[in-house]
C-alpha cells in the first residue's frame, strides 16, 4: 500500500552551511518556512522533489516536510518541523556567529 500523501513544503539543508532551507514558488531556496511553496497535489509535490534532488550542488537531503497552509503561508504540521523552522527551543550559551 502506498504511503498516504501529506501536503507540505520541500525542505533540505544547505550544502555549504548546513542550515535549513525551503523551496519557494520560483524554485529558489529560501530561509523562511512561510516563504515556501505549499504543495497539496501529490503529483506536483513529486515533481518539485525531483527538482530539489537535481540540485546536489546546493542542498542535501531534500524531502517533503509536512505542513499546513495558514494565513501567512505554510506552517509546520509536526513539532519536528516547527523546531527545524525556528531553531533550537533552548537559549544557546553563545550566539556569536554573524548571520546565523
Amino acid at each position, binding site marked *: 500500500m502506498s504511503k498516504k500523501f501529506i501536503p507540505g513544503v520541500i525542505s533540505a*539543508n544547505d*550544502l*555549504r*552551511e*548546513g*542550515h*535549513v532551507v525551503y523551496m519557494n514558488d520560483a524554485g529558489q531556496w529560501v530561509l523562511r518556512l512561510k516563504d515556501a511553496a505549499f504543495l497539496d497535489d501529490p503529483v506536483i509535490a513529486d515533481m518539485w522533489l525531483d527538482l530539489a534532488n537535481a540540485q*546536489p*550542488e546546493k542542498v*542535501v*537531503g531534500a524531502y517533503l516536510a509536512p505542513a499546513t497552509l495558514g494565513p501567512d503561508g505554510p506552517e509546520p*504540521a*509536526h*513539532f*519536528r518541523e516547527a*523546531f*527545524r523552522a525556528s*531553531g*533550537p*527551543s*533552548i537559549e*544557546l*550559551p*553563545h*550566539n*556569536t*556567529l554573524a548571520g*546565523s
Partner: protein
Amino acid sequence: MFQPSDFDRAAVRARAEQFRHQVARRLDGSLTEDEFKPLRLMNGLYLQLHAYMLRVAIPYGTIEARQMRQLAKIADAWDRGYGHFTTRQNIQFNWPKLIDVPDMIDALADVGMHAIQTSGNAIRNTTTDAFAGAAADEIADPRPYAELIRQWSTDHPEFQFLPRKFKIAINGAEADRAAIRAHDVGLQLVERDGEIGFQVFVGGGLGRTPMIGKEIRSFLPAVDLLPYLESIVAAWNLAGRRDNKYKARIKITVHELGIDTFSEMVEAEFPARRAAFKGADQAILADLKAQFAPPALPARESESFDTALNVDALLRDWAARSVSPHHNPDYGVVTVSLKDHGAPPGDATSDQMRLLADLAERYGQSELRISHEQNVILPHIAKADLPALFEALRKGGLATANIGLTSDIIACPGMDYCALATARSIPLAQQISTHFRDLGLEQEIGALKIKISGCINACGHHHLGHIGILGLDRAGVENYQITLGGDATETMALGERAGPGFAYTEVIPALERLLRAYLELRESATESFLDALRRLGPDPFKEALYAEAQRHAAQ
C-alpha cells in the same frame, strides 16, 4: 604525560589533508552526497537538524590544557562559542559550516587531535574511568591499555566495515565509573595472584534492545588483550547480522547464539590471532605505561584546606559533592559540574574551556578529563589548592555543588539538535534541574541519577538512570516514558518502564510526585532513591507517578 608519536602526528595530518580534498570535491560537484556521506562520517562529520555537527575524539576522555584551549579557539572561530561534551567522552560542535570543517580539522591536528572514527561502523573511541590514574580505589591505570586499543583499532584494515559501530569501555578501579557492561566489550582490570589481567564482558549495549554484557572471560592475562579483542571482533564480523541494522550489534549476535557458542567462536579464533602478535604490542604497552606514569606530586600539607572547610560553608558544600579520594592523601580528584541549574547538560562555553585549561595548568598538572556523565575532571588537585580553585571556578560559573544530585542529569542533544531524535531532551533537563532546586528539595533528595534520551538510540543512557526518561513521538506529540531502577555502576541494572508515557508538560509534576513519594517512603535520610526502590519494589513509586491519572479515572 602521553604524547602522540611522530607517526601518529603524520597520520593525522595526512588524514586532514585527505579530507580537505574530499570536501573540495563535494563542493565542486565531483562527489555526490551519496559518495561524500561515508567519507564525512569517517571524519566525524554529521548533518543534523539545523547544521553540520563535528564530533571530535577525546580518547578515553583525557585531554591536556593546551588541547582544551584549542577547542575553545575552534568554538569561537568556527562555531558559536561553545561545545557539547558527550556521554562517550567526546566533544561535539553543533554549528560548523562544511566549508570551514577542513580548517577546524587542521586546528585539531595542530594539537594532536582529530575526529577519526567518531562515527561509522568502526571501533569507536574507547571510554574509561574519568578518575583514571588518580582514584584511590584504582587497581591499575586503564589508560595505557585504552591507548593501546586506540592504536590497534585506528584504521585497522579488517575492521573498517563492521556490521555496526563497536564500543569498548575499560575500567581500572573497584567502582565501575565507565559503565563497562553497557558496551559491546567491557573490560574490568583485575589482579589475580599478583598478575594484572581483565575480566571481559561482551554483548552489552543500550538502544532499542538494551542488554547487560555477559562475562566471556573471568581472567584474561593482560598480555593477551589485543589478540583476544581481535578474536572477539573477528568472530562478530563473521557472524554479525548485516541484513538488519537494528540487529547488527554484537549484543544481538551473543544473544541469538548464546554466550557459550559465541565464546567457542572466539576461542577458536584466538590461538592463531595470539600467534600473530609477535610482541610489538607489549613493547608499545611498556612505552605507554611509562608515558602514563603518575605525575610527580609534591607533598603538600592539607591543614589549610581543613581550616577553610570549617569556616566556609559554600566551600564545604562544594567539596562534599565535587572532591573524590585521590591515591595520594594530600590530593583530591575534582569533578567540575557542567550542569549549572538551568544550563544544557555537558555544554561549556569557550570562556569556560579556557578557564578550565588555565586552572589545570595552575593547579592540576595540565591534565583534564571528560566524564561519561558529561562533567570535567581535574584529576590531581592538592587539597591545599582547593580553596583557591573553588574561588576561581565560582567566579567562572563552574562551581555548582550538584555532582550526583538531581540536577546532575545526563541528557543527549535531543530534537534541539539531533536528526535522529524523536523528542527534546535538553529543555526537560533544564526544567527538572531548576524545579527541584527551586522547591528546595535537591539536597534532601540526595544521590539520584536522572538520564534523558530523546530517542530510542539511548545516547542519554536512560536505561541506566535511577530515573530514566525516553522521549518519543506519539502521533505527532512529544511523549516521555519513565523507567525506574537503572544503574550504571558495578551493580548495573536496566530500568523498567513504569507505565504509559507523559506529555511534555506532565513530566515534571509526575517526577515531583515520584520524588515526594520517595521522601515519604525512605527509611532514613541516608537511604538513596535507588536503595529505596530496590527495597520496596516499583509499585509504590508507580502509584505516585500515575496518581493523577488514577484520580482522574476515578472521577
